[in-house]
């Protein structure tokens, strides 16, 4: 029964996908929109196939994925650390908060060229841009998550002799975990945006570079091929985050349910 439910969802998924492609194709076939803007799903698929068949994509993909993953990891860790630190130190929080909020609000993507100036045109400047995007999403959630810790559980841990680091490890972090993961899902997207925009603003390789090149040649199919490729890998990264999340949060109380009860 459980199984057939899942099968039905899968079928629906496939159906939606087919409808989506058909709709896309129809858009240009019946001239609803110019193919200059929406391209053709089959040409896009062909382009993707070609990229992989010739192997030319691997270099670009490798660069982009490297930037994304590094920005994601560093940005998350940094967001976690700073979030914990500021949530636990009211003075630091008061001192830093206007700067952090200001920096958060700063349209960092515009700074991409400046990052290129500071960090060069290689992967570093893209990673830096990605970090600034990932950092804030994670930071705000960690900050709030820590402040939501149950006061009683906290008091209990303190009475049981927890030192500051032990409190951190045993209470604050586990309690904030669901907050962290919620932010990580958004952060996956941000990391990709950072890497690709960075490449887009100036680079020698990467999927963003390919997209920009295709755009320069008015090749919308190339643009979509790049976007779809990125999306696919973003889904993979998101799935990895999901697996880790399920593992770390398996303790969470859900509505109680008996075994074998009719749904």
């Amino acid at each position, binding site marked *: 029964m459980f199984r057939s439910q899942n099968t039905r969802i899968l079928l629906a998924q496939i159906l939606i996908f087919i409808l989506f492609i058909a709709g896309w194709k129809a858009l240009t076939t019946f001239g609803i929109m110019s193919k200059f803007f929406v391209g053709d799903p089959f040409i896009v698929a062909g382009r993707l196939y070609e990229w992989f068949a010739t192997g030319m994509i691997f270099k670009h993909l490798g660069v982009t994925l490297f930037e994304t993953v590094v920005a994601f990891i560093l940005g998350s860790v940094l967001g976690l650390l700073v979030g914990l630190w500021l949530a636990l130190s009211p003075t630091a929080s008061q001192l830093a908060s206007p700067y952090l909020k200001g920096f958060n609000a700063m349209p960092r993507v515009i700074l991409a060229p400046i990052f290129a100036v500071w960090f060069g045109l290689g992967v570093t400047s893209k990673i830096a841009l990605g970090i600034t995007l990932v950092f804030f999403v994670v930071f705000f959630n960690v900050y709030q998550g820590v402040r939501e810790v149950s006061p009683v*559980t906290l008091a*209990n841990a*303190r*009475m*049981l*002799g927890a030192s500051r680091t032990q409190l951190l490890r045993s209470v604050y972090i586990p309690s904030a975990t669901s907050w962290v993961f919620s932010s990580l899902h958004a952060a996956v997207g941000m990391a990709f945006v950072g890497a690709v925009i960075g490449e887009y603003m100036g680079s020698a390789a990467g999927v963003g570079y390919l997209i920009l090149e295709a755009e320069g040649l008015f090749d919308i199919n190339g643009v979509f091929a790049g976007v779809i490729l990125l999306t696919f890998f973003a889904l993979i990264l998101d799935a990895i985050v999901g697996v880790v999340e399920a593992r770390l949060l398996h303790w969470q109380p859900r509505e109680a349910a008996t075994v074998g009860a009719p749904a």
Partner: protein
Amino acid sequence: MDSAVPALALRDIACHFPARGNPGGTYTAVRDSTITIAPGEFVSIVGPTGCGKSTLLNVASGLLKPSQGTVEVFGQKLTGINRQAGYMFQADALMPWRTALENVVVGPEFAGMDRAQADRLGRDWMARVGLAGFEKAYPHHLSGGMRKRVALAQMLIMDPKVILMDEPFSALDVQTRQLMENELLDLWQADRKSVMFITHDLEEAIALSDRVIALAAGPGTHPIGEFAIDLPRPRDVAEIRHLEEFSRLHAQIWEALKEEVLKGYAQGKR
């Protein structure tokens, strides 16, 4: 019962809280309260619900700074957390992300005990509170009474010199409660700890304690009576209830409390 240096002394405590629905105003939960507990003494606190018992225990644990008054632990003025004390909270305070066993061994783990040894000790304690077999259950998989027993084991495993307990047995059935009470008495007897014990069950208070302190109804709670319980030790909590002396004490404390409760209730009814 008096000793030169009390294990725990609350001196002239007052606690004002911000008042509800009246910005800037305050609600005085506790006032003029002095309670001392000698080393090795078992003191129970009884009083009407909402009078300020938990507040006093929070003050004794160092978690809550009183608005006025001082706390001394073995003669030392308490500033931060009371490191000599173990505290079993009235509310559910287990870590939901840890299994029952992991919760029980939290204290030893913090103290740096070896993993395997802590585990052995933890399993031992799980059995002592009657929960062997539930080591891997998460708190939300346990019944209310089971969670309380996990919390009990979590506190007692630390072997604290001063034990603070807030209605530890109220969620247990009578029989299990007696088993736990005896367990607690054995432990206390073995190496005389100081206990500050909050309960609503007068019989329990008398059966366990050296002294019972009755509190007035809030607001502005303060002790209104102290009753020395000179029943013989060691005691069995199930049997001691049948002593005549027991009934006399029960009636005496009951009398003192009854008025207070009715007073408090009348206030609450406006």
